[in-house]
């Protein structure tokens, strides 16, 4: 992991922290009092529909445009007051990575390395190797595919030996193989290298598969944020099982009185059971059913869907507006 850190970066538990961050473009409010807390060492999704304010948020964080109101910290540094110190350990891809097309991949990295500092030049070759572009590094970028440009963009981020990577819609334009590869690279950066990755996306599935925690943003506001499982269940951690049995009635009577079970009801798949305790109680439930002479064919945890939660939230936000329209 990265070399010497300044005190603020080393001590910061929250790698991104904003309070009341607001950005207005004339009469339009793109960010509306955003309070965001991104913990160190996680893959954090910034999830929202197109036009929700995701890219504006990233642009404000990186100082590409100024905030209208509010405060923020990156790596413990107040921004914009200590923007340079904060960004020295941040790598970012905003929208799509841009390059000088007439230069080679390596030359493009040399340009950013020169701007970052003398020690950074030595990181060019390892960064190219890390993203699998060593063989194509001396070809002009205009001959690169979209996927290769994305990878070169990540290599450019790695030049700063980043504590924080900010990636804006990183899988746009990638084929399924590329998306899978990208996801694995992000997980490796978080789990093996201890970096924090902040991913903005409108793709629920992508965020769900890649991230540990997320914030859902809509119309410039952070609607909710937290660990992925909490978000999907709306804050309530719910352990639900689908149980496939040979005799549903006998199974329901066997587990109906069990203190392990909060709720059990018949469903298309057999029985849906909400457990009181941890997922490990599923084994005890299985023992009860077997003890009652019920044949158990299937015992499967129900995955709480972030998509369902996301749609629930955005539908709730839409409702007042729709009501207003009806009134009008």
């Amino acid at each position: 992991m990265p070399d010497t850190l300044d005190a603020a970066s080393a001590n910061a538990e929250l790698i991104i922290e904003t309070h009341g961050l607001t950005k207005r473009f004339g009469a339009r409010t793109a960010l509306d009092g955003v309070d965001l807390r991104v913990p160190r060492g996680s893959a954090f999704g910034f999830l929202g529909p197109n036009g929700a304010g995701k890219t504006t948020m990233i642009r404000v964080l990186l100082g590409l445009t100024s905030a209208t109101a509010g405060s923020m910290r990156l790596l413990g540094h107040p921004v914009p007051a200590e923007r340079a110190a904060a960004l020295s350990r941040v790598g970012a891809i905003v929208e799509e990575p841009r390059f000088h097309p007439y230069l080679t991949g390596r030359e493009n990295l040399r340009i950013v390395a020169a701007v970052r500092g003398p020690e950074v030049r030595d990181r060019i070759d390892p960064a190219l190797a890390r993203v699998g572009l060593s063989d194509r590094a001396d070809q002009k970028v205009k001959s690169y595919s979209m996927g290769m440009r994305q990878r070169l963009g990540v290599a450019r981020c790695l030049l700063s030996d980043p504590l924080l990577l900010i990636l804006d819609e990183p899988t746009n334009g990638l084929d399924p193989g590329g998306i899978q590869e990208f996801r694995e690279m992000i997980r490796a950066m978080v789990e093996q290298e201890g970096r924090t990755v902040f991913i903005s996306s409108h793709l629920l599935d992508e965020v769900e598969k890649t991230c540990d925690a997320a914030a859902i943003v809509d119309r410039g506001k952070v609607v909710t944020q937290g660990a992925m499982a909490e978000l999907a269940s709306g804050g309530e951690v719910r352990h639900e099982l689908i149980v496939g049995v040979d005799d549903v009635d006998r199974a329901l009577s066997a587990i109906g009185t069990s203190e392990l079970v909060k709720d059990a009801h018949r469903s298309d798949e057999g029985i849906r059971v909400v457990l009181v305790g941890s997922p490990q109680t599923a084994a005890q439930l299985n023992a009860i059913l077997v003890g009652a002479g019920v044949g158990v064919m299937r015992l499967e945890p129900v995955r709480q869907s972030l998509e369902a939660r996301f749609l629930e939230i955005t539908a709730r936000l839409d409702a007042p507006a729709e009501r207003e329209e009806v009134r009008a």
Partner: protein
Amino acid sequence: MSATVSSSTRSGRELGSGGGLAVASQMFGADLLKLRKKRGTLIWALVLALGPPLIFFAVTAIQHASNPAKYGPAGGTGNFSDGLRVIALLFGPLAALLIGVEAGTGDVSVGVFRELVVTGRSRAALFASRVPAALALCFSIMGAAYVVLLLGTFAFAGNLATPDLALILNGLGFLLLSTGMLCAVSVGFAALTTSKPGAIIALIAWQIVASPVLANISSLGSARKGLLSQAVSHFSPVHVEGGGHGATVTMSGGIGLIVLVGWLVVFLGLGVWRTRTMDA
């Protein structure tokens, strides 16, 4: 929150101010790399700078060979002066402005500017490194053009007198001053407009149309001393009347210098202001 602020220290890796000469040198090298690899701009600049003296000597040498009684040798001091005027006042500045505009808008036009801003490096530093890089490329090309001019001057001199060392050095200085000024001003102007085609059209129109026309409007009087071309012409070692800049307005060396510095301060100032304040 305030506790964290107080514990923040400025590390040696901070980009806004640190790095010194090593960083400046690397940034200069990076900007020069971008410019010299931009083939279209480089080729046009070479054509504009080297083409005119090559054509000038080729034509006058052929004329002299075909009719020596009517046409004198292509070289010598007189033709050196003509060639210097052509390079330093007509075509060299066009080459210089192409380079300056490319330096001023290159990063913005392909969207790389924001990739540089997110490094944390100050925007003023990003702007500042473009100027010496543009000048370095401009001076290299002008140096080559001047070598062509000198080769022609001496090779085709025949029985004519050739320039002495003082004139050669003054001529070089004047060429670099004339083209360097326009190159630097173009960097600032292009950064201000952020539009490459717009900046090129506006600067060419200014250089070859507006500036000579204004110089010819005698009712403007001493206000014409404020024209860049007039201030540059003041430092010419050869006579420049009719050299493409309209009527020559006389001024002292001090005034000429002040005008040159004024143009640099205004346009580089506007360029750095725009670079610092624009949304990346």
